[in-house]
């Protein structure tokens, strides 16, 4: 290491420059491996999907510039609106129910003592299963002929092939699979509320529901808001369960945006058109994150 002598300003300046360059080199070496992969496999495809959406590219990426024609076609395509509405319907069936179930279960679990860890593990365990395991287990339980559920309830519904029931059934499976995650976050949120506030309120004579609505709920809002955002974004990208349980059927009743894009891109070789759906999906998610982060910030400020 160079030791600078006080007073000799020029050597000091030079050594500082050398040091700065050395620092920069070390930093560059440490950042480069991640950065290169990040730019190549996340940023570049994101920019490319926008470019492709203005072309009639196939699955090899070769095609001509066609201006806005993909977008115009998309807006006039009933299948697109169907996929968008189905996605929104799926969100309606999952996001708020999953949040409420998560909160309810978190409140139930928090008041337990000895059984707490066991019960929490029971609710969280499905979350670590691969999606294809989740779907095959529920295909079995909800099998119309030999399934346990129909045997116990006397129902004869073919859950995943029924135009009315397919989407609610997929939503139910999704909640079963992922609610453990919400429970964890809610428990963390509930535990971070200071017990002093409850004591003060109890001294003022508040109890039960009053405590929940005046203290728990407002103090829990930042976590609730985070959970809503995470789910909203995740459910817009819904693909796996739908593909495995219904493949979009029956009669496209469970066709969602990403599945529509997958069909157009990988099955029909319409790379450009599939990219257009991708861009729309990305825009929706960006807008949702922006709106939600505003809400989240307000929750923090309050």
């Amino acid at each position, binding site marked *: *290491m160079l030791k600078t002598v006080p007073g000799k300003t020029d050597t000091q300046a030079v050594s500082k420059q050398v040091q*700065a360059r050395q*620092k920069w080199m*070390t*930093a560059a070496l*440490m*950042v480069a*491996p*991640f*950065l290169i*992969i*990040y730019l*190549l*496999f996340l*940023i*570049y*495809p*994101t920019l*490319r*999907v926008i470019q*492709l959406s203005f072309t009639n590219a196939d*699955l090899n*990426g070769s095609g001509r510039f066609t201006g806005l024609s993909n977008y115009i076609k998309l807006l006039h395509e009933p299948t697109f609106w169907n996929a968008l509405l189905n996605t929104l319907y799926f969100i309606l069936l999952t996001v708020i129910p999953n949040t409420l179930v998560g909160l309810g279960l978190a409140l*139930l679990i928090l*008041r*337990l003592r000895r*059984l707490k*860890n*066991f*019960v929490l*593990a*029971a609710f*969280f*365990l*499905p979350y*670590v*299963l*691969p*999606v*294809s*395991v989740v779907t*095959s*287990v*529920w295909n*079995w*339980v909800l099998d119309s*002929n*030999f399934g*346990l559920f129909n*045997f116990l309830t006397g129902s004869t519904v073919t859950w995943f092939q029924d135009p009315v029931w397919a989407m609610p059934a997929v939503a139910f499976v999704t909640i*079963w699979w992922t609610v453990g*995650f919400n429970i*964890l*976050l809610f428990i*963390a949120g509930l535990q971070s509320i200071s017990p002093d506030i409850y004591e003060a309120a109890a001294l003022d004579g508040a109890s039960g529901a009053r405590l929940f609505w005046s203290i728990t709920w407002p103090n829990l809002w930042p976590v609730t808001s985070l959970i809503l955002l995470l789910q909203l974004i995740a459910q817009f*990208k819904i693909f796996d369960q739908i593909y495995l349980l219904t493949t979009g059927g029956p009669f496209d009743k469970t066709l969602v945006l990403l599945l529509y894009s997958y069909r157009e891109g990988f099955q029909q070789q319409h790379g450009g058109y*599939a*990219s257009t759906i*991708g861009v729309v999906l990305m825009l929706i998610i*960006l807008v949702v994150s922006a709106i939600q982060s505003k809400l989240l910030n307000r929750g923090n400020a309050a």
Partner: protein
Amino acid sequence: MTTVSPTSSVTARPPVPLGVRIARLWGGVLTVLTVLLALAWVFPMYWAVVTSVKPENDTVALPPTIWPQTFDFSSYTYIFQNSPLVRWYLNSVLTSVAITILVLLLSMLCAYALSQIDFRGRSWLFWLILIGFMIPFQASLIPLFIFINQLGLVNNYLGLILPQLAAPIAVVIYKQFFDQIPPELGDAARMDGASEARVLFSIFLPLNWSITVSLAIVTFIAAWNNFLWPFIVMNDTAKLTIPVGITQVQSAYGVAYAKTMATAVSAAFPTVIAYLIFQRRVTEGVMAAAGLK
């Protein structure tokens, strides 16, 4: 009781007030309800395991038997002998381990530089990485596939692994943890002539060991369970990962539910065991990933 207080001298303990008794009863009911709900929640998993060890005929017997009348493990031997399950296992283990190690290493290096080295362009670089949080990779699946195809990496393990390393989340988590360490600690080591790599691996890493372990387990489970990208990029049956592979054989089994459940149980085994052993680590990792810690 040995000490007798003057007020409750002779008679037995005063009766518990009605309100308290109702509250206790209500509490007991809630506890029982919670436990029953938890059992109902895991029941489908139990049902899958039980079905997998029944003879195929018993799985469709009515009424269904809650406990197998005869234990029959032939479904397991069948699926392991008649499908590339072992190969898929190996694929999943090797790629998930590689992804876990690389994700941790790359993000650790990047986050360390962002947090501890004062270099030009640092703040905009961090912004660039934060942007990645907003970007859904699913939206650009087509160009990603085209790109991987152009690189000749379709049906190649590298093509499976590389895009999964591009997630900025671990970088952000590590940066948060490194930011909490006073820079004097690193400066002291640097005065003694330690290189940045050395400062990272012998001072900063040990201080963050617990989050590294948590992140490793959560990353491993996520990589093992990943479905969409392996499903897109691997077409060669022998090269599938286990969550994708089992869907292929299951559709071939049709209503052979003992075999279908045996594949499901086999595919879920590693993550379930990892969770049961490292429960607290998984919780910690999930919290960190959600931005709550």
